[in-house]
């Protein structure tokens, strides 16, 4: 995993090109920090009364300074895996198919462990329309290189319930690296 580039400490004139390159790398990292906007556009069945990691098989952006990104749309596609260690701003939500029974919830998890304070639970919105539930917005989570964050959906309609994947209803997760 690459390191987060940091500006060098200067004690004299900056003449060596390597020092200027270190400045360049640090600035470039800040201009192109790891960011991802991941979505689901193919239906997933969610078991009853179970936190289910949401598969994110589509993305709008998944990028960092060396263009690699932290997500794979096929293999373990529930995960955003950090390449650069640091605090990440994470948000997202889950769309549930139309069903008026009981409750819906969404929350974040790091390495499979739920993030305290990230959950939202609401009653099903309607018997005639999907229910969209956000995880609490703007969670800051610390990820070491190789650690991963996921968004989970939960429902207790009484049986398996599909996600809602039409347009704005799509489940999604947004990640932005913000600080070492």
């Amino acid at each position: 995993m690459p390191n987060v580039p940091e500006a060098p400490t200067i004690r004299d004139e900056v003449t060596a090109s390597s020092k200027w390159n270190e400045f360049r790398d640090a600035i470039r990292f800040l201009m192109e920090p790891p960011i991802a906007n991941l979505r689901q556009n193919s239906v997933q069945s969610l078991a009853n009364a179970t936190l289910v990691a949401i598969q994110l098989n589509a993305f709008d952006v998944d990028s960092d300074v060396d263009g690699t990104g932290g997500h794979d749309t096929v293999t373990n596609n529930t995960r955003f895996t950090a390449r650069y260690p640091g605090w990440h701003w994470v948000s997202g939500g889950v769309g549930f198919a139309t069903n008026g029974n009981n409750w819906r919830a969404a929350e974040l998890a790091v390495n499979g462990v739920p993030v305290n304070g990230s959950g939202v639970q609401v009653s099903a919105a309607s018997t005639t329309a999907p229910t969209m539930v956000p995880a609490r917005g703007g969670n800051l989570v610390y990820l070491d290189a190789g650690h991963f964050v996921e968004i989970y959906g939960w429902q207790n309609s009484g049986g398996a319930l599909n996600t809602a994947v039409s347009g704005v209803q799509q489940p999604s997760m947004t990640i932005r690296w913000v600080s070492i």
Partner: protein
Amino acid sequence: MTAPRHNWWLIVRVDGATHCWELADTSDPDRLQDTVDRARVQVQFPPGDDWIAGDTRQNAVQLTQGEPHPSLMATAATHQLADLDRVTAQALAAYRAASDNERAAARMTAAREAVLRLTSEQRAQLYGDIPPPPRGTTTTGGRT
């Protein structure tokens, strides 16, 4: 959805312990629900819905794709899927009945709380005008 290259894993946290099972096939929702319920019985997960309970025990039943992170696996007990076949049909039925009761109680509580939040005008709209009690009677069990 594109078939994942890695299996799904079931993680159950209960009373401070973490249990894991690697699932072979999750394509049948009914069979998957059966597996999840059997796991809950095997590790004595409290009946009802962990999210609704709103407790502080951090109990959770999760499904995640791919082998969980090494930090989780280091502290988790990994079980064989075949072990869940030892959960008897009677134990499974009793657990599901207890869960249904818990959910029904949660629904009743939520409905009662929703009614209590209504204004008197909203209650009148829902249930019709309730005439005031006749003069000389009370609604407080006879005490004035």
